[in-house]
């Protein structure tokens, strides 16, 4: 396996795994504590519409998908403020309609033979230097925003009503968390794929939640766990000729199961 590290595609894969792990460690913690997992699922699946638009109109993939996801996120955010009772339905619609739009647009694209499975389950070994640059820019933005407004974000996440009373702009920060989640989803698509992105945003955070005493430590622990699971998944993928994305997620899932069982045994 060490020999393969001399190949650029493998180096890119490892760098992107570390970057995505840091990004999903930070944003996944916010998604989980704000109970936005279903909402993120809706955004992740609607991203397929952005992919379809990029393929049909020949637009840059990351830019097109990012803009499409930001639009969907803003619609969901506004709905959650004004008609919270209809939010579940709207998420369901964007989930299904986004995917359908993507598939129809790809069907209509003349002569296009792309492997759509790569967008569903990721193609870690096809990550380019441009993708890494995009990840670095997003990571820098996430770290700057989250740690500059850390206490506002913590207050909104912990007790929204109380934060509002203390003068925190809760709707603004709720939307910021959603937008950062949305952009995280877009870049994670390339690494672990559309279907499995939610797993990377939740499983390491679920395990980190067992032993984290603060939101910050949860972000750090989730990041380290995510890197650890990804490296094991990549090794398994290489040695047994398996798809990289599902290998990473199955590794994470097994550890989540062990963590759950360990917790249950300790309770007794």
């Amino acid at each position, binding site marked *: 396996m060490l020999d393969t590290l001399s190949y650029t595609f493998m180096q890119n894969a490892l760098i992107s795994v570390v970057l995505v792990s840091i990004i999903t460690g930070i944003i996944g913690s916010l998604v989980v*504590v704000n*109970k936005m997992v279903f909402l993120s699922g809706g955004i992740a699946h609607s991203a397929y519409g952005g992919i379809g638009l990029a393929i049909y109109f020949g637009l840059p993939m990351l830019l097109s998908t990012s803009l499409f996801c930001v639009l969907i996120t803003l619609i969901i955010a506004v709905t959650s403020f004004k008609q919270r009772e209809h939010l579940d339905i709207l998420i369901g619609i964007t989930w299904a309609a986004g995917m359908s739009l993507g598939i129809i647009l790809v069907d209509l694209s003349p002569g296009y033979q792309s492997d759509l499975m790569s967008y569903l389950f990721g193609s870690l070994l096809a990550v380019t230097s441009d993708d890494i640059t995009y990840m670095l820019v997003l990571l820098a933005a996430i770290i700057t925003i989250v*740690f*500059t*407004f*850390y*206490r*506002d974000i*913590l*207050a909104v*996440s*912990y*007790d929204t*009503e*109380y*934060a*509002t*009373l*203390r*003068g*925190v702009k809760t709707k603004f920060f709720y939307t910021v968390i959603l937008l950062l989640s949305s952009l995280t989803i877009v870049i994670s698509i390339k690494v672990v794929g559309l279907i499995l992105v939610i797993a990377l945003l939740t499983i390491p955070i679920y395990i980190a*939640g067992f032993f*984290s*005493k*603060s*939101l*910050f*430590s*949860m972000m750090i622990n989730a990041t380290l766990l995510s890197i650890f699971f990804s490296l094991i998944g990549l090794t398994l993928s290489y040695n047994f000729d398996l798809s990289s994305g599902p290998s990473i997620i199955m590794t994470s899932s097994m550890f989540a199961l062990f963590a759950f069982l360990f917790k249950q045994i300790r309770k007794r």
Partner: protein
Amino acid sequence: MQLQTQTRTVIEASDLSFSYEKQKVLEEINFSVKEKEFLAIIGPNGGGKSTLLKLILGINPLKNGSIQIFGKPHTKQTQHIGYVPQNTNINTTFPISVLEVVMMGQNSLKHRVFGYKKEEKQQAYEALDKVNMRAFSSKSISDLSGGQRQRVFIARALFSNPKILLLDEPTSSIDTQGSEQVYRTLKKLNEDITIVVVSHDISVVLQYATRAFYVNKNLIDHQLDKVRSKFDGTSEHICEVEMLEMLGDCRC
């Protein structure tokens, strides 16, 4: 001079009405609360108790009537109010320490970036001292019992040294022992600040309060020494629903 300070009006509401869409919840309510009173707001579910509290806090917008805090419009006096929301709205598994929760009680987050200043921590320790929870400052909030958690939320409300403390059902989903600890803490705090508690736990809250408002769309003001003498010897034999009905029917 001392007497004047003790009888100062802290909250004054005039002709207060409130509706959720077409349903009238509060109608033409007038009352005043004096400094260092321990006021219990009781009444049936849906009677408007929490709505009244949220009007005072400014969470619900005031459409009819006026509320004044220390003689000025209530929305401009929020720095004087500490608030303890219902326990049920809180995510109890959230990864956060007791100290971090207490430091959220600042009036406005001047210092927003990651990390806490030494003086903020000191202020939080002082607030925790007032509710006897300093020893738990580094613990995770999820490791505490319901009663301990509620005392932490009281410390959060005390962080900015308010003159009035408003509490919404502070003992809901807490066992009897935890509930008594919370009320004993409030009674001690009442030596310095005004306490307003919305509660359905009538038999407990009436032991500690000096005055009670029975709220069911309208408001009936009860002086509790008279109420206590009325229930004396009978309170152990009547249920809370009957007690509530009696308070709703009579003006003591």
